[in-house]
């Protein structure tokens, strides 16, 4: 927005503008309220009155401690971390390699390949769920980490994003290194990776959130309680057997990494959705 337009807006700081702001504030508060309520219930002392009857008179971390001392929960958290972090590292590596090749290398069948990668976006994961499961069980990957992680690495959004970014890097950078006798791997490792750091960071955040929040695939691939991720474990907690405060405490802990990522990188996330349409 240009400066005069901005000034004009400020001049028109009228009742209408004020009421729009108030309306937006109300909508924002309503949107955030469920999270606040979750934290309130999660921090309510055992036996104390809580929502919806009354607000608790004091807050405690007892429920959080209780949740972590239950064997399953800690294990689910570790599983979610492994599933997310390992996937981030491997997707960043394979997608940046493929993106580099698609952007800067000429080889037979390159464009056909790129298009067929993108075409897979058309097929919803749910439509392939059964053959996916059969395939991974044929490879003895059910109830293992690799069986959970490796199939999710074939991510065309990641490849395409890397390719678009690398394509805009000037060719001279790579040519100069080639003339200096650098090997192809060295060019990738020493030039491509450092130059793509901003897009790698953005993609990493998205991949982390996709995996941390993922549910259907971990649900079918994790057969034993020991292999459950947080989302799958949380879904098994029922009010009939677990006190509500502990369910909410578990839920609150599960959302903390998302909140941290969001708090630190909000601008990043928002901009990349606006400019690339990257979808969670």
């Amino acid at each position: 927005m240009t400066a005069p337009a901005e000034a004009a807006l400020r001049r028109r700081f009228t009742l209408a503008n004020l009421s729009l702001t108030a309306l937006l504030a109300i909508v924002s508060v309503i949107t955030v309220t469920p999270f606040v309520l979750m934290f309130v219930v999660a921090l309510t002392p055992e036996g104390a009155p809580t929502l919806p009857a009354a607000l608790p008179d004091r807050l405690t971390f007892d429920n959080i401690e209780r949740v972590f001392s239950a064997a399953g929960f800690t294990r689910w958290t570790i599983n979610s971390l492994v599933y997310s972090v390992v996937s981030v590292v491997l997707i960043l590596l394979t997608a940046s390699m493929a993106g580099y090749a698609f952007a800067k290398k000429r080889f037979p069948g390159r464009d056909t390949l790129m298009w067929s990668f993108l075409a897979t976006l058309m097929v919803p994961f749910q439509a392939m769920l059964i053959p996916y499961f059969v395939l991974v069980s044929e490879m003895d990957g059910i109830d293992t980490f690799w069986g959970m992680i490796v199939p999710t690495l074939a991510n065309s959004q990641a490849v395409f994003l890397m390719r678009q970014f690398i394509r805009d890097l000037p060719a001279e950078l790579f040519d100069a290194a080639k003339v200096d006798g650098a090997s192809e791997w060295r060019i990738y490792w020493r030039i491509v990776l450092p130059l793509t750091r901003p897009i790698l960071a953005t993609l990493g955040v998205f991949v982390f959130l996709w995996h941390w929040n993922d549910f259907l695939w971990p649900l079918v691939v994790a057969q034993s309680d020991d292999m459950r991720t947080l989302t799958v474990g949380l879904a098994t907690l029922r009010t009939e057997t677990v006190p509500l405060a502990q369910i909410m405490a578990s839920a609150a802990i599960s959302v903390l990494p998302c909140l941290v990522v969001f708090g630190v990188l909000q601008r990043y996330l928002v901009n990349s959705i606006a400019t690339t349409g990257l979808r969670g």
Partner: protein
Amino acid sequence: MAETLPDTVTQNADGRPATPRGPRQRLGVRGKAPWRERLREPAAGLLFVLPMLVLFVVFRFVPAFGALGMSFTDYKISGEFDFVGVDNYARLMRDPVFAVSLKATLLYSAFYVPFTVLISIGTALLLNSVIWARGLFRGALFLPYVTSFVLAGIIWRWVYELDGLVNGLLAKADLGPVDFLGDTTLVLPSLAAVSAWKGFGYSMLILLAGLKAIPTSYLEAARVDGAGPWQRLRRIVLPLLRPSLFFVLVIETIGAFQVFDTIYVMTGGGPVRASYTLVFGLFDQGFRFFDFGYAATMGVVLFAIVLVVSLIQRFILDRENT
């Protein structure tokens, strides 16, 4: 998205570059490069793509065609199967449960898509017009999007329950109780509201980007000509926002047909299959009854529906652009 894809690489029929421009040529080094040198670039390209290529072949292409293949078999969990032709498709047509799940999915979408699109437009317009604390509001509104559907399901399950938040508040006013998740007519709008709350942030950002792209001079000119806020919205903003709106509409429709997580957590498909949607039915057939062939067939139908929605999108876009 597809519009940005076409590449400008010129290749011969056999795939080699039509005009070889290696670093040597470009830097003016004369003479024909040895074959090792000429092979270097394609070989490197293929090697860099190889890991992802293997992943795609094994975990995308094989399952995609596998789903189609399995839909013509009676694949069982033991791995034994016979080809049964189109029996699975015939069975789907006769299956009252499948009819119920299709109906539930369509009804759910009929609630979810308008909910989400209207909230997204509303919040995007508000965000675009306020001056104070825009970043703060945007962050608050976008927050649910970075969390999981499972989390949304857990919180809202409690909000909706008979001894939950809303009914507790209603009881104080001597009202209710309302059985949001136990009532066959209320369950789908209730679920759709949860997904809308969790998901609208994405569409809001897309629409906000669309709004930002509208030149302020258009709006100023209209204002000078005496157009009120409503007229400006109807005559200028919404028409110029059409492409973004259209994208959002398609994305959300496709998403609605794939709903699963919240249903698994909140209703388990009930009550009496009122929220037994397509993907929930697929999961049920696959992992409760282990009828893999039949479940795979439902997957093919899901793909067909998504494909039709996308093709309609393309068709309308193409018609508008010509």
